[in-house]
């Protein structure tokens, strides 16, 4: 393209946020997914302070109360659980622990994994070898054993569960980061920085990290869903979070014995897990498109036609 192009680029530039919203609006699935996720985050933030007491109040008379009956008040709209606690309130309150476990585990694993991956990818052969063998060991370390060890030596709490789940997810970020670093460090602009005399730290944090960040974020979105499912599986096996703490996974796991008699106990939290993981998946595939300059036009056209 010739020199004049720069002058004609985007005569009425939207703000970054505005572009983001219009690209999101272009993919209706992603838009609703984001809305739903915001709702979940809202529940996680303020849910417990609003409904904690209601969610913990046992009322054996409302035991397994069926859904869609409003006699007992709106909190019983989704029915009651085996101890007569309103499912709706419990789901809202459980959002906090569920999100904390998932977000905590993802944040921890991405921090450790990406740091090790950067080191392994950027520094020499030996640190890389050691870190990769370490990743192998974690990869083949049975996550269930890890859960039992950590929860036995420490105790089953949200914090420790985060540790368990985070450790098992480290290799994903580690390997991805390393692979990306190996690719990015060969890029011309990294060499350009080297020629200018940039230090390793500067190259890693100013040049490499921003490049691999979108990939990490995409993986993290998917992993968020995975961690939620893993947490519920641990609850199922009896080595995850334990009452009186509640998470959605624990609710499904506790409700499964009532599947034939009171399906709603396991159904609602299960549905919320599905909706959340699906939303994250949709958001992540939207991000894959939105962050890829060669695919982005699909969203931008869509955004235009809706202007």
């Amino acid at each position: 393209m010739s020199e004049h192009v720069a002058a004609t680029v985007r005569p009425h530039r939207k703000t970054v946020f505005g572009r983001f919203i219009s690209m999101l609006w272009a993919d209706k699935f992603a838009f609703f997914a984001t809305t739903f996720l915001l709702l979940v985050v809202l529940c996680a933030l303020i849910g417990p302070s609003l409904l904690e007491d209601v969610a913990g109040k046992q009322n054996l008379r409302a035991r397994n109360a069926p859904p869609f009956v409003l006699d007992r008040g709106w909190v019983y709209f989704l029915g009651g659980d085996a101890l007569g606690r309103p499912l709706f309130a419990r789901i809202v309150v459980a959002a906090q622990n569920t999100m904390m476990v998932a977000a905590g585990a993802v944040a921890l694993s991405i921090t450790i994994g990406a740091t090790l991956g950067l080191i392994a990818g950027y520094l020499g052969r030996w640190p890389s070898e050691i870190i990769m063998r370490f990743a192998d060991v974690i990869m083949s370390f049975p996550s269930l054993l890890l859960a039992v060890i950590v929860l036995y030596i420490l105790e089953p709490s949200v914090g420790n569960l985060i540790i368990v789940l985070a450790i098992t997810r480290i290799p994903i970020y580690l390997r991805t980061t390393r692979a990306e670093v190996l690719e990015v460090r060969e890029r011309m602009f990294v060499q350009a920085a080297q020629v200018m005399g940039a230090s390793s730290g500067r190259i890693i944090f100013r040049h490499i990290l921003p490049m691999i960040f979108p990939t990490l974020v995409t993986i993290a979105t998917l992993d968020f869903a995975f961690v939620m499912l893993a947490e519920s599986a641990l609850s199922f096996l009896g080595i995850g979070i334990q009452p009186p703490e509640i998470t959605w996974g624990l609710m499904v796991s506790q409700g499964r014995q009532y599947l034939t008699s009171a399906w709603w106990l396991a159904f609602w939290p299960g549905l919320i897990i599905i909706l959340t993981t699906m939303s994250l998946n949709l958001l992540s595939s939207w991000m894959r498109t939105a962050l890829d300059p060669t695919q982005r036009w699909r969203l931008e056209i869509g955004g235009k036609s809706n202007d």
Partner: protein
Amino acid sequence: MTDHLLEVRNLSVRFHTAQGFVNAVNDVSWHLDRGETLAILGESGSGKSVSSSAIMNLIDCPPGEITSGEILFDGQDLLQLDNEARRALNGKRIAMIFQDPMSHFNPVYTVGWQIEETVTAHGRPAAQARARALELVKRVGIPDPEGALNKYPHEFSGGQRQRLMIAMALALKPDILIADEPTTALDVTVQAEVLTLLHELQDETGMGLVLITHDLGVVADVADRLVVMEKGCIVETGRPHDIYHNAQHPYTRKLIAAAPGKGVMRQPDPSAAPILCVQGLQKSYGTFHALSGVTFDVRRGETLAVVGESGSGKSTIARLVLRLESSSGGKALWKGEDLLTKTPKEMSKVRREIQMVFQDPTQSLNPKMTVFQIISEAWAIHRDVLPKDKWRARVEELLDQVGLEAGHAERYPHQFSGGQRQRIAIARALALEPELIICDEAVSALDVSIQAQVIELLGKLRDDLGIAFIFIAHDLPVVRDFADRVLVMKSGEIVEDGSVEQIFEAPRKPYTKRLLAAGLDPDPAVQKQRRDARLAL
């Protein structure tokens, strides 16, 4: 109706983009006759490839959209045919070859398989396909044709791949061959051979050839007729000779004027003191010697060009001197101190004095940083050069120096054109006020007119600031216009060195002579003489 082999009439194509619709070609008409070579000349973004993509049904809709026009072939409008009918024409009646044969071959299948597929895709039996493939590979001059059929694309050299690509396209003896920048990525000598091959094949089969190119030399070498395009429109058509000597449109005139290799040659200043002395520099990868003992000097304020074909080791010199790779032997004395043995900390200091401009500005600028950040990063690294409050002013000064506007500082690289990006890269190199700038193919990815501007800019910097250059290039005419001295490299060794004048006017070594003879001249008449001379060589 006409009896042209192929006729494009009033074709308009536009694309959806983030900025709305962009018209790629606007009301374009041209035709091709049997046995004729039509060249479509234009710079990047001129829309020169779009009409041929439309002929081949290669435009993705969306984002593309053909808004008007017709493409007549055999009396039929191709745009009215269904996909199946057009597929049946592709490869059989109309074939196409592309710029980068490496990526246009499927990397996971043998070339034999891929050539045969052209034949079998149109319903011929496999046995016939095999025989035809062998015949073709022989014809395009690949050594060991039987063995070659079972090899994969990555096992061939660039020139061989383009020959194979031609073989694949010609498998069914099409009536029309469209060649989209078929020689752009090739070395000059190989380019000449491929063009000759195309010419011969055209004579044999009588096909019509559409040649899409940005290079006036290519046009001069093979075209019968020429179409010049700018911004999606045809600005001029006619015989190459006529256009070269009597261009009507200002854009065409600008293009012709920008063709390098016509200026006055510079004379080196033997009195200047050497600042970089490279002695016996070596680099080997296992048993392969990329560089085997290279010795040369660079003098203060001088431009030393390093020329040679791909793989000759010319870029390796730059990478070794700047410590982007470790050397296997030799010295590189910068003002008397060996760069190759310096600690990273000592090296960091020297880096201020030697800077580099890379080939591809799209890749050498961090896409996540603004122009201001990119240029000022140098001072963030070398804190003592400039206090932070002066950064802004200095960035603007540098931008002005390289011909950009101060307001550009807050933009990101992708918002600029290729030439502008290279100016940013140059501004970055200037930020530390270096004494030596190494340009590694710094202008070869740019369009001719932009190339000329960048060379002019570099020349101005050299004259104003007294900066020395190591100018690595494969394009001889550019070197001729810009350098003081030239090193000619082949297989990791220096074949010949001397002043520009000596190398270009009186080359001593046969290799240098061949290199010079393979270069294409934009004047069709001159080029015809050159070609005859080369064939005689």
